[in-house]
């Protein structure tokens, strides 16, 4: 087990040792090591993307009592290969009135932040590609590049649906970024660091021998986790916040004029970005690579990390299967009138929890601090958007 825990790192080191004995200079080895890490991380996430693209369809199908894709290969697992071939062989359309350079650059710019943010996630014990002191800040700073890419795509297509979709996407992402960052900051505040690995380390250990010290087990952490999760759904343009691509209104939003491999790049970047934000969610609130129960610590940490990421991704598909798309004014009202005050409440609650000594009393205090705003805001929202029972005029 200990061997398995260290397996990825040891494999890399062994490979480098072999190269070193062949006479490759020291500095080159450092670069090679970096390349190996980058390659592995990108490879793993591309694999996850491929798996997700088929599993999402299968899960959605199961929720709707269908089989889902099961034709290509065993259980339809080669579906991504088929999709890839289809995407690659499709014609690459560029509208005549499009801004050709920007139209070409948009998918590239979209891919860059999606891959960059993978650098700071702690994938396992002592397995952070880049140990950055202000990793959380890096994550959100680089993630901001996605908005630029979406705007470029929408504007360069010279299509009114694209521009509308891009404007919706930007409005949505700017609005949801605020609760997202504030709820992330609560976790950073309690851990006392902006470094993801320190935050994960702060969630280690077990209370009463079996309860993990994950932030999600505290009232403020649970609230912040929910807020972060909702913000993450909106940031990665996933249902029910997929208005920018609302096909019933906007064809495909900023993706309308994209086809072939450029579309595939967008698709890939969106999914990798989604996995990255799932990874950040796991790191901040679900204890990162920490095992959920004491006796399970023998299982390698990186398996826990990716298991949790897959679980969070599964819940995102579950949400997609359950909730209908929001209306655009409801979307913004929800962000500014519910999520923002709630994230402040979670922030305050975390502070109360910390200064009340982090014990059971602190637990209840933070529950009260976060519960009252929830009830007030929630009730005001449900009363405002309450739906009267539908009456049928001509039947019954």
């Amino acid at each position: 087990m200990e061997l398995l825990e260290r397996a990825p790192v040891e494999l890399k080191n062994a490979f480098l040792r072999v190269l070193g004995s062949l006479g490759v200079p020291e500095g080159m080895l450092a670069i090679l090591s970096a390349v190996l890490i980058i390659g592995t991380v990108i490879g793993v996430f591309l694999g996850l993307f491929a798996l997700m693209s088929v599993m999402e369809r299968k899960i959605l199908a199961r929720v709707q009592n269908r089989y889902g894709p099961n034709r290509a290969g065993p259980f339809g697992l080669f579906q991504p290969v088929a999709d890839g071939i289809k995407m690659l062989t499709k014609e690459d359309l560029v509208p005549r009135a499009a801004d050709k350079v920007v139209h070409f650059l948009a998918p590239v710019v979209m891919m860059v932040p999606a891959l960059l943010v993978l650098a700071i996630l702690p994938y396992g014990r002592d397995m952070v590609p880049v140990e950055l002191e202000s990793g959380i800040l890096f994550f959100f700073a680089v993630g901001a590049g996605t908005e630029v890419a979406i705007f470029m795509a929408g504007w360069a297509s010279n299509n009114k649906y694209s521009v509308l979709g891009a404007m919706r996407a930007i409005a949505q992402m700017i609005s949801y970024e605020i609760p997202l960052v504030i709820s992330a900051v609560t976790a950073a505040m309690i851990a006392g660091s902006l470094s993801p690995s320190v935050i994960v380390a702060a969630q280690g250990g077990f209370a009463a021998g079996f309860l993990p010290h994950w932030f999600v087990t505290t009232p403020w952490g649970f609230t912040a986790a929910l807020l972060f999760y909702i913000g993450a759904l909106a940031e990665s343009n996933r249902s029910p916040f997929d208005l920018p691509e609302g096909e019933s209104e906007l064809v495909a939003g900023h993706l309308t004029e994209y086809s072939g491999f450029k579309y595939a790049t967008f698709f890939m970047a969106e999914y990798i970005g989604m996995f990255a934000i799932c990874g950040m969610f796991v790191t901040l609130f679900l204890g990162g690579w920490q095992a959920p129960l004491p006796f399970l610590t023998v299982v390698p940490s990186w398996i826990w990390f990716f298991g949790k990421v897959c679980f969070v991704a599964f819940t995102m598909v579950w949400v997609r299967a359950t909730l209908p798309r929001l209306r655009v004014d409801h979307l913004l009202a929800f962000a500014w009138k519910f999520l923002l005050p709630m994230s402040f409440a979670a922030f305050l609650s975390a502070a109360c929890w910390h200064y009340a000594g982090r014990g059971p009393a602190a637990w209840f205090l933070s529950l009260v601090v976060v519960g009252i705003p929830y009830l007030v805001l929630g009730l005001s929202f449900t009363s405002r958007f309450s739906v009267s029972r539908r009456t049928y005029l001509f039947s019954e």
Partner: protein
Amino acid sequence: MNFPGIGLLKGFVVTARNFLGSYVEKDRLTTRQYPEERPKLPENSRSFPFLVFDGEDPEAGMRCVACKICEKECPPQCIYIIQDRDAAGKPLKRPRIFDIDISVCMSCQICVEVCPFESIRMDTDYELSSFDRFGSLVLDKSKLLKSNAYYHGIHPTEASETDARIEADRKKKEAAAAAKAEAARKATAEKAAKAAHPPEETK
């Protein structure tokens, strides 16, 4: 007043129940896995027309006599017939070319209803997709001709009725022919008798 968020949770429970249920109760999955599981078609289902022939040899047993009624009646005009001629140029009672463009055919069955020779019938084969839009969807005589046994296989009731009708027609025709022959024979016999024994009164 409901506790805020309860409605969302109820929705999630519903989808979760469907998700898990689809693995437990097989009845939930109503999708038929097509190439492995084929639907049992009702007997009167139909796809596109074909030509029936009797016996073993398609050319010899062809019921079609190239009367072109179906060609005239076909609403989308997907049937194309050229009558066969012998070396002397005399028309023969069989088609030289009989094509049906099934990319145009709308399966209305009017050709079947108008055919006086019970020659054109509806097939049930629906796996007709091909990569060649123009060549392989125009069926020629060799592809259209199918034996009466095949017809019995796909539409047993209808085929037996048709056979019975053909048989009845044949019998009627035979009877009529026999009656005619009888009458002719009688007439000849009478004539002969008359010739042999001319009535005396006339003299």
